[in-house]
């Protein structure tokens, strides 16, 4: 078994006990990256030299007998919408092709304090708009389990790298499912924390009231440790929570006896793939075996969540993306005057989906349509939130599929944006409510494609969903399966 196949917590112990060196580990993961990258194309930037230098620094520390922190010397990848000082941050857009941030995102500062090995920046849908990573301006990423299929998105590069073994862990961001859905498609664990649990400072904004950074990992234990590192209040983010951060790794027990699990009938929708439904229900029945209580619940406004999300997110995006105008940073396409320069820059350097969402957002915000669309969506958002508030009076967690289907084929969804938007039905409602959600591998489709079980928690109750996921993980071994590159379908 090669080193890249192991989860971080195992590798950490091996490093601490000097069974391996960080340099060996990093070289092995880089070798795996070289083996797979031609087919998977998870990365946009590989920082090979600094990665090896970071590994060697950790080895020196270990050799001198110093203790190491959890992530120290363990190679991981960062979604390319998280600002990394001195390393290009493109958001997979042509408009930021050469943008090098002069500052680190708060999560990067927190990570760097742990001295991990940063392998590079990974692919995504441009500005996190999409669910397949096909909207990257550079290249699509392929699902390591089935190369003709998408890895999901927008954090497709993060999920594919962790699944392929070209990273042990990764950070992604989730605005409407962008961590959980690719985690589900690629057979890894993906956690979207409560809005405000992790600082957004340095995360390039798509939709500010919905965005949240979270980990993608090999298993639940790694996800809990990663959350421990990145969670917490940040004075640079006024929306970050001041609530104390518990030790999420400590919360991982197998005890789910008496846990009340709600199954929202609206999430098991008509369009759902048969394999997905069967697999997810089978996973839920395991909980019953472990002594949990299963209740059917209703989240009656689920049917409106897609409309709400696809008005609020583009409206926020339309303003968030106004700054890309060729004036003080980013690329510029010349024009005879200022307005022409700005217009040429934006028209030529934003991709089609980004332009479409900007147009929808500005339409919803413009005079005459504001009340009918944007304001209406803000009100329905309240109703979606209230659904969860009511539900969580009865249950401790909510379970559902992460996505209605397994990974779809590249190009399959490109023609019809609305069809792709409807794919997000199980993931967007909790972004609207700000709640935490996790996707944990729970089996495969008949074609061998990974399927994820989504576990949704109360605000700031990541500990309970991690515990529930961990308890399930102990009953099977899906999380130990590495993708056989291109093996399926």
């Amino acid at each position: 078994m090669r080193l890249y196949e192991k989860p971080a917590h195992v590798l950490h112990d091996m490093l601490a006990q000097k069974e391996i060196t960080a340099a060996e580990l990093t070289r092995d993961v880089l070798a795996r990256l070289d083996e797979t990258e031609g087919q998977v194309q998870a990365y946009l930037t590989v920082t090979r030299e600094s990665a090896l230098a970071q590994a060697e620094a950790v080895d020196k520390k270990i050799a001198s007998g110093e203790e190491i922190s959890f992530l120290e010397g363990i190679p991981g990848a960062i979604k390319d919408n998280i600002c990394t000082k001195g390393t290009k941050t493109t958001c997979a857009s042509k408009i930021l092709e050469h943008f090098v941030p002069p500052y680190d995102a708060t999560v990067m500062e927190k990570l760097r304090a742990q001295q991990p090995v940063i392998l590079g920046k990974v692919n995504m849908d441009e500005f996190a708009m999409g669910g397949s990573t096909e909207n990257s301006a550079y290249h699509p990423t392929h699902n390591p389990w089935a190369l003709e299929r998408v890895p999901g998105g927008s954090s497709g590069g993060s999920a594919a790298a962790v699944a392929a073994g070209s990273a042990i862990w990764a950070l992604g961001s989730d605005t409407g499912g962008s961590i959980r859905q690719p985690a589900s498609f690629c057979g890894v664990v993906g956690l979207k924390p409560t809005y405000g649990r992790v600082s957004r400072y340095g995360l390039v904004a798509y939709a500010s009231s919905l965005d949240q950074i979270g980990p993608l990992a090999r298993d639940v234990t790694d996800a809990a440790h990663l959350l421990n590192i990145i969670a917490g209040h940040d004075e640079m983010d006024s929306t970050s929570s001041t609530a104390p951060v518990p030790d999420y790794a400590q919360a991982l027990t197998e005890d789910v006896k008496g846990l009340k699990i709600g199954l929202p009938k609206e999430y098991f929708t008509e369009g759902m793939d048969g394999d997905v439904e069967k697999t997810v229900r089978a996973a839920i029945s395991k909980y019953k075996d472990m002594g949990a209580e299963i209740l059917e619940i209703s989240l009656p406004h689920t049917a409106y969540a897609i409309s709400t999300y696809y008005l609020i997110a583009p409206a926020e995006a339309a303003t968030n993306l106004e700054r890309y105008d060729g004036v003080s940073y980013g690329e510029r396409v010349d024009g005879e005057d200022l307005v022409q320069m700005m217009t040429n820059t934006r028209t030529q350097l934003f991709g089609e989906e980004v332009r479409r969402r900007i147009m929808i957002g500005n339409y919803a915000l413009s005079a005459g349509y504001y009340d009918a669309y944007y304001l209406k969506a803000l009100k329905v958002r309240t109703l979606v939130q209230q659904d969860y508030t009511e539900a969580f009076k009865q249950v401790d967690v909510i379970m559902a599929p992460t996505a209605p289907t397994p990974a779809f084929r590249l190009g399959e969804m490109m023609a019809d944006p609305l069809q792709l938007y409807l794919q997000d039905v199980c993931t967007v409602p909790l972004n609207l409510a700000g709640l935490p959600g996790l996707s944990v591998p729970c089996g495969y489709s008949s074609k061998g494609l990974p399927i994820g079980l989504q576990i949704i928690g109360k605000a700031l109750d990541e500990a309970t969903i991690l515990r529930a996921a961990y308890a399930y993980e102990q009953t099977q071994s899906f999380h130990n399966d590495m993708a056989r590159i291109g093996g399926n379908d």
Partner: protein
Amino acid sequence: MKVTKEDIANVAVLSRLSVSEAEADKYMGQMDKILTYMDNLSQLDTESVKPTTYALPMQNVFREDVVRESLDREAALANAPLREDGYFKVPKVLEG
């Protein structure tokens, strides 16, 4: 059609995007389909519902009035497409 050519032209100006004739038709079709779907929201009576702007209820988050280090000018200008004498340089401004 809910979305007119005029809407597309107006929204394009607001978005600082140029939309060609051919694209305008495509946008119109797509946006029309999306906005028609979104009309399902009008089924809901939201007369007495308060809008939600913030994901979680928070208030009064302030910073003390204490100076922090600024970027040095070179770092501030490092990503500029065009610069001149320590300034960001832009083409002529026709409108005020």
